[in-house]
């Protein structure tokens, strides 16, 4: 009511004015009727009515909300000021938009990845079950991104726990939709019966899976598909229900579709198809993990019973653990058996879901810190600009203060302009962040690893941006405003008239701001250089093999109906045919493709002594080293005489020789694989000596590595991984191999990638850090340079008079340039000094993300300082030059 009147207060005032006019007219009429002259009538009427302006003002005040009124006035004034100076407004808003946008992007990603809870009912009641301890030392086979539990363990947890009203297990396999040929991967879920019930997820169409669907030995299980998959594959048609779906060659019936918002429990992924856990043997065949006590592939989440806390659940799980581990003991080596029996279950909160993308959490926090610094630099820059403007208006403000305006009122007016800039900048930044975070998420995805991260802004993002806007406003608006209104009017009016030089004190704050800017931006430039050099080190390092022209083909024979015993022969046959295709220079089988995500290791007995450290193992065919362009240093390659029944042989690397034989020539020496008691420990003879090679991760140092023939005791498997060296165009090579596989058996599924793209994808984190920190570093340096340029220009302008006098007295141009440059140099030097110290401290936080250089790398520090210094000096040279071109007579005549 009061507010609606407030909005109409202008019209009200007009109305009152007309009413008072009317009153006057009537009174004049009456006065004329009494016989006064027109002039007397008018004067008398006016006297009688009193001061109409005061009356109107009184009524206006009744209608208005004083605080709001003043605010609107101030904002209008601010808009006028910004319009007067569009260049300043553009620079200010743009620099803030970049700063806020970068911050909001990082925060949005962190929010999506770490802070936001799962979009299910009461996510805070969810807890994940796992083996307690940070990194339990488990032995066995692992599969999937969240291999936390084995199925035998899970079944016992399900049957015996008392902490959860319901609990489920899940794994996220990749299913293949194709009937053969090139694979069509979809993101699957194996879920135990209570999955949907525990999460309280309702179907959008049809039904969800229930405990009745998850019975061991199920043969034609139902499937629930996600909304996205339904749209993609079935165009959103309701006819999809009841439709048959072929996954890994097995038929499933689609019984339900989930709502659009539900993506599973894994942050950053979207499931396509969920099927009961009992269907796992259909996909894995004889290699099913369901009855393997050492087959880790499941994760479990439960909903706490009312009144239960995560701690209480953890204690309960711990208490019921011992018999579970005793009953599910696999055939382990004694020390593995001991640690297995010592395992206890625990529980951790799972309301925010689980995610393998959390390896990005630390980089993101670091980047958020970086962007906060960029924003600080931008604020310092703006504060400097505002100070300059406030100084230019010094006399105006002094006059207003002298006329009785209150300090607070003038300060508020100055701050209003900052508020406008901050709001506009934050608004633009928020828009920018939407776009930036989408681009970033898209860049996290690789060929084999699709990433879906819902980055839409929510209230947290919104409040974060609002907070940023308020903070920036305080930082760059308040200080100059306080500064500007704190002058004694008399002094300001006296000083402005014929100033020669600014006082040291007045100029000090601006100097400090520039020094801070230079220091902060140096920290960012150092960071950027560290990450760029890390990436460079990783990209250019010698992995131990030639990366170009190397194609990786993964051929899955599972549906070809070949029994395990004949699988090696089938693999060898295909490999042989592949080698004879035109354009294929060389090809070899390898169980674990370097940096391919899978690895094997074994414990060795060397010289009769069991060695504690696990050694990396790889099973290869002949010509592997030629295919990888990594010729043997000594000894021989594997050949066709190395069969399952012949003497076991091995090829070892330089690191192996160094660690186990003190660097001696290993040829002819032997070792054994340490197997669990009761299993024979075969003796391997070393026949070849190979160069060191990266194995699991490019970032790892070279480790001992043993190559053994695939024909000798390779763990069974239906997948053939082949590395192919070929100069054929990639599409030609892949179609040749696909055609060949089809020839062997139409149901063989093939997947391709190049070694180069695989290595590139494995460096995603480093690439991200290098790109983003490089961008922010450049941005920071740019803003700081603009800041220095601004301050130097301003200093030159303020000292026109003084410089004019100096030149009139005989100072030459060089001396003037020198004077300005010395001043700039002092600021820069101080900034660089502070920045170097800060960089050394800050870089420690990044040390785990660096490769091949230390956080305090002197070359990096020097380069950063030199680059920043050079750019800044160029920026200050321009004002110096301008000062030297000053015409002394003109400068002195002014003012």
């Amino acid at each position, binding site marked *: 009511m009061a507010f609606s009147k407030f909005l109409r207060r202008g019209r009200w005032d007009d109305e009152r004015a007309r009413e008072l006019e009317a009153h006057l007219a009537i009174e004049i009429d009456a006065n004329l009727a009494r016989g006064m002259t027109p002039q007397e009538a008018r004067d008398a009427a006016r006297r*009688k009515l009193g001061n109409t302006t005061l009356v109107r003002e009184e009524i206006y005040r009744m209608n208005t909300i004083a605080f709001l009124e003043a605010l609107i006035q101030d904002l209008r004034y601010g808009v006028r000021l910004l319009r007067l100076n569009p260049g300043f407004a553009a620079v200010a808003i743009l620099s803030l938009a970049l700063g806020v946008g970068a911050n909001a992007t990082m925060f949005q990603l962190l929010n999506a990845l770490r802070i936001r809870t799962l979009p299910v009912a009461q996510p805070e009641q969810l807890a994940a079950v796992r083996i307690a301890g940070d990194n339990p030392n488990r032995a066995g086979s692992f599969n999937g991104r969240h291999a936390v539990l084995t199925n035998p363990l899970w079944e016992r947890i399900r049957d015996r726990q008392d902490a959860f009203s319901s609990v489920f297990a899940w794994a996220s396999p990749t299913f293949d939709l194709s009937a053969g040929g090139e694979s069509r991967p979809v993101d699957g879920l194996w879920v135990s019966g209570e999955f949907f019930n525990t999460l309280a997820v309702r179907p959008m169409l049809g039904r969800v899976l229930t405990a009745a669907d998850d019975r061991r030995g199920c043969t034609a299980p139902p499937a629930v598909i996600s909304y996205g998959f339904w749209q993609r594959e079935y165009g959103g048609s309701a006819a999809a229900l009841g439709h048959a779906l072929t996954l890994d060659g097995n038929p499933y019936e689609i019984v339900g579709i989930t709502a659009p918002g539900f993506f599973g429990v894994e942050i950053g992924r979207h499931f396509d198809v969920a099927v009961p856990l009992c269907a796992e043997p259909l996909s894995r065949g004889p290699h099913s993990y369901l009855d393997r006590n050492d087959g880790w592939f499941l994760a479990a989440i439960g909903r706490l019973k009312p009144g239960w806390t995560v701690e209480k659940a953890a204690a309960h799980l711990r208490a019921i653990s011992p018999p579970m581990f005793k009953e599910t003991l696999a055939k382990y080596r004694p020390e593995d058996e001991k640690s297995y029996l010592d395992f206890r279950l625990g529980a951790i909160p799972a309301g925010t879901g689980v995610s393998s993308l959390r390896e990005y959490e630390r980089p993101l926090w670091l980047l958020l810190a970086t962007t906060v610094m960029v924003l600080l630099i931008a604020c310092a820059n703006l504060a400097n600009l505002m100070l300059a403007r406030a100084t230019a208006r010094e006399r105006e403000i002094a006059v207003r203060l002298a006329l009785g305006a209150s300090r607070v009122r003038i300060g508020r007016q100055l701050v209003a302009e900052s508020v406008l800039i901050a709001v506009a900048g934050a608004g633009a930044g928020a828009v920018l962040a939407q776009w930036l975070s989408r681009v970033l998420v898209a860049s996290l995805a690789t060929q084999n690893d699709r990433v879906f991260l819902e980055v839409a802004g929510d209230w947290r993002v919104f409040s974060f941006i609002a907070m940023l806007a308020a903070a920036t406003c305080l930082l760059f608006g308040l200080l100059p405003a306080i500064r500007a209104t704190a002058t004694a009017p008399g002094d300001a009016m006296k000083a402005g008239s014929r100033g020669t030089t600014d006082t040291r004190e007045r100029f000090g704050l601006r100097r400090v701001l520039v020094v801070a800017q230079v220091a902060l931006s140096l920290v960012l430039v150092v960071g950027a250089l560290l990450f760029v050099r890390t990436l460079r080190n990783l990209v250019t390092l010698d992995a131990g093999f030639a990366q170009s022209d190397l194609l990786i083909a993964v051929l899955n024979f599972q549906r070809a109906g070949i029994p395990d015993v004949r699988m090696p022969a089938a693999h060898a046959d295909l490999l042989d045919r592949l080698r004879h295709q035109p354009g294929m220079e060389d090809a070899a089988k390898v169980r674990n493709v370097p940096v391919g995500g899978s690895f094997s290791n074994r414990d060795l007995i060397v010289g009769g002594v069991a060695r504690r450290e696990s050694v990396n193992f790889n099973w290869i065919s002949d010509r592997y080293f030629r295919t990888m362009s990594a010729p043997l240093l000594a000894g021989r390659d594997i050949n066709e005489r190395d069969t399952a029944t012949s003497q076991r042989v091995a090829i070892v690397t330089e690191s192996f020789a160094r660690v186990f034989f003190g660097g001696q020539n290993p040829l002819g020496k032997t070792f054994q694989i340490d197997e669990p008691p009761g299993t024979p420990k075969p003796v391997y003879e070393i026949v070849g000596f190979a160069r060191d090679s990266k194995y699991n991760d490019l970032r790892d140092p070279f480790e001992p590595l043993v190559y053994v023939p695939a024909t000798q005791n390779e763990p069974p498997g239906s997948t053939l991984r082949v590395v192919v060296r070929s100069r054929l165009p990639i599409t030609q090579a892949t179609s040749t191999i696909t055609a060949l596989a089809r020839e062997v058996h139409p149901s063989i599924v093939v997947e391709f990638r190049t070694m180069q793209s695989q290595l590139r994808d494995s460096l995603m984190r480093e690439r991200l850090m290098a790109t983003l920190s490089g961008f922010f570093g450049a941005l920071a340096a740019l803003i700081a340079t603009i800041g220095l340029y601004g301050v130097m220009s301003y200093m030159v302008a303020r000292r026109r008079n003084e410089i004019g006098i100096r030149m009139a007295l005989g100072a030459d141009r060089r001396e003037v340039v020198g004077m300005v440059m010395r001043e700039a140099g002092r600021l820069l030097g101080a900034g660089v000094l502070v920045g170097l110290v800060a960089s050394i401290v800050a870089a420690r936080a990044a040390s785990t993300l660096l490769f091949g250089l230390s956080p305090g790398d002197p070359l990096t520090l020097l380069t950063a300082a030199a680059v920043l210094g050079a750019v800044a000096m160029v920026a200050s040279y321009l004002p110096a030059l301008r000062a030297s071109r000053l015409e002394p007579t003109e400068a002195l005549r002014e003012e």
Partner: protein
Amino acid sequence: MPKRGNAPIQGELLQGTLDLLILKTLALGPAHGHTIAYAIEHRSEDVLQVEHGSLYPALHRIEDRGWISSFWGTSENNRRARYYRLTPEGRKQLTEQTNRWDEIVKAINRVLRPA
């Protein structure tokens, strides 16, 4: 003409009093500001001199409370003027306030002239 001076209306009691006088005047029928001012002067036999300008903030305030409403009309000598009329709520207020006024006067009298 016994003139008590043009002392500006001030203080809570006097301000409330002006409101009461305006309501009473309008109880006779709609009127514009000029008429109201003269009516008050007349009926008080020129004891109460209203500064015409101060009438309007009072009118605005009373209208705000919903006791009177206003409309544009034509005056006796054909001038556009803003007329005010009592609302039912205003009529109720007039009765209440008049009673209160009587009480106050009685109370003050009891203090000034103890029996």
